[in-house]
């Protein structure tokens, strides 16, 4: 009987996580990306469907759902049709080990398994099979080139990624995501063993950006060279599934980065005599807001910074008054999880629309000649330090 209940639970959670991803990950992610790219390029972005274009992605999804599925004539139909499902499911499975927060003594995580981060890396590495299969099955030279680029890129960047994960796991002494967050109660790992923590976080972030195929590492789908890369031949909902998988993966990596280095759902806590730091931060952000609002011309280019400053001011002031009122936990943990995740997602989008793409040889030498030695040395030195300090 318990097996039956377990299976029902698994189905329910899968539906929940999938809905969350489809709504937050793909729909809101695409909207955010289009809006931010618009601002960075001094455009307005989507504006017409819904208030401020909020319903644009829903309209697009409805459009994609109605479209015809086209399978190219000489494509391998079976592999062609299953490839988007592999990508989407792999992106979905990443979320099993991501902890969203804590309510009382219960952790909001689908399953806290004792090899959490290894599981995450394993599921993330499955995506490339879907990409490679889709690229090959399309029977299109651009798609095949995109798939091959994805394969070489992901194999190269998996190693620095694993080194970054290992660094955090080594400090925490555990592979489970929940205990990784618990271990950061006293201080986030990004500030541990300075500056090595920052270095490990940077290694991980660069590798994660490459792993989710985003600029400056978006060679598999480089529009100007490969049309759209591995999904050039896909139409309708299959194309949308590729997009869903990609955004799910990006959000998952942002969430994992916050779990590994930014304390996951933990609130950045300062004791009462340090509460003025929040006030200073809040005042600074408010000053920035005022400067942009009244001094500069309110051009679109500064709008991302403006919105960030407004949010930072709000958060800092809430924290300041919360700490002054003597509350141990000012905001619920799930809010912190989303704040950290969306900040990282914003950072990734900012990078995407700011930097040009690398060349393939630059991309590979960055991984093998810079990130890999750096990550290994970092691991070695940190291991030495914590062994000596113990």
């Amino acid at each position, binding site marked *: 009987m318990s097996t039956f209940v377990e299976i029902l639970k698994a189905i329910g959670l899968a539906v929940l996580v999938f809905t969350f991803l489809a709504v937050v990950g793909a729909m809101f992610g695409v909207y955010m990306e289009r809006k931010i790219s618009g601002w960075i390029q001094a455009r307005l972005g989507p504006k017409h469907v819904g208030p401020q274009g909020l319903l644009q992605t829903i309209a697009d999804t409805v459009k994609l759902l109605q479209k015809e599925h086209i399978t190219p004539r000489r494509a391998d139909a079976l592999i062609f049709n299953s490839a988007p499902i592999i990508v989407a499911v792999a992106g979905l499975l990443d979320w099993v080990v991501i902890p969203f927060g804590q309510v009382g003594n219960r952790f909001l995580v689908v399953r806290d398994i004792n*090899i959490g981060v*290894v599981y995450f890396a394993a599921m993330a590495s499955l995506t*490339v*099979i879907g990409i*490679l299969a889709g690229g090959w099955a399309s029977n299109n030279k651009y798609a095949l080139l995109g798939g091959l680029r994805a394969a070489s890129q992901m194999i190269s960047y998996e190693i620095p990624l694993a080194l970054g994960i290992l660094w955090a796991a080594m400090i925490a002494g555990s592979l489970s995501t929940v205990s990784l967050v618990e271990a950061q109660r006293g201080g986030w790992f990004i500030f541990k063993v300075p500056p090595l923590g920052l270095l490990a976080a940077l290694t991980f972030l660069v590798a994660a950006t490459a792993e989710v195929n985003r600029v400056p590492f978006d060679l598999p789908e480089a529009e100007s060279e490969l049309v759209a890369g591995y999904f050039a031949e896909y139409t309708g909902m299959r194309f949308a599934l590729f997009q869903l998988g990609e955004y799910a993966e990006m959000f998952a990596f942002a969430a994992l980065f916050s779990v590994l280095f930014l304390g996951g759902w933990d609130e950045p806590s300062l004791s009462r005599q340090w509460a003025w730091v929040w006030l200073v931060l809040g005042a600074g952000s408010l000053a920035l807001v005022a400067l942009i609002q009244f001094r500069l011309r309110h051009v679109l280019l500064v709008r991302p910074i403006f919105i960030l400053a407004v949010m930072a001011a709000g958060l800092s002031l809430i924290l300041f008054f919360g700490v002054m009122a003597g509350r141990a936990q000012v905001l619920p943990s799930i809010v912190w999880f989303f704040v950290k995740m969306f900040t990282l997602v914003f950072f990734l989008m900012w990078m995407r629309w700011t930097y040009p793409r690398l060349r393939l040889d630059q991309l590979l030498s960055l991984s093998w000649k810079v990130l890999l030695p750096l990550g290994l040395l970092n691991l070695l030195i940190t291991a030495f330090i914590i062994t000596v300090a113990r």
Partner: protein
Amino acid sequence: MGEFAAFTILSLLILIPAVVVVTSKNIVRSALSLVPTLLGVTGFYVLLQAEFVAGIQVLIYAGAITVLLLFVIMLTEGGAGLQVRQVNEQIPLGVTAAVWLAFLLLLVFSRTTWPVAQRGNPPAYSALAIGNAFMTDYVLVFEVTSLVLLVSLVGAIIIARREE
């Protein structure tokens, strides 16, 4: 009961794609069919409570080895989905070997008294226990294996460079 059902499903998941691997005329399909097989083996590891090995199995075999296989296939001439013959004139030999192996296995199975005695709990397969074992009892084996892998890596680079 749940365990038996899981075992049956996983066995089918391993065996059916495995047949495709050795019979398909399309070499890319063969390579892709390895993925469900390897994932099924992962399922067995999970059933045996060896989660760490399961994670590594997916990471290395499904995630890296298969991708490497596909990569190599697509970079060579077979990448066009060439029709390949997977059988050659050694069928009689192969059949003989298979029959003998099956005979031996059946012999072993029938001679064993089931269930094989299970005293106490299975050993802890946690990452911690595996790491400790590697660094204490099996440190020599571990280091020699690393050395072999390093040598093969260097050898591959030397062979690749000679062609330039």
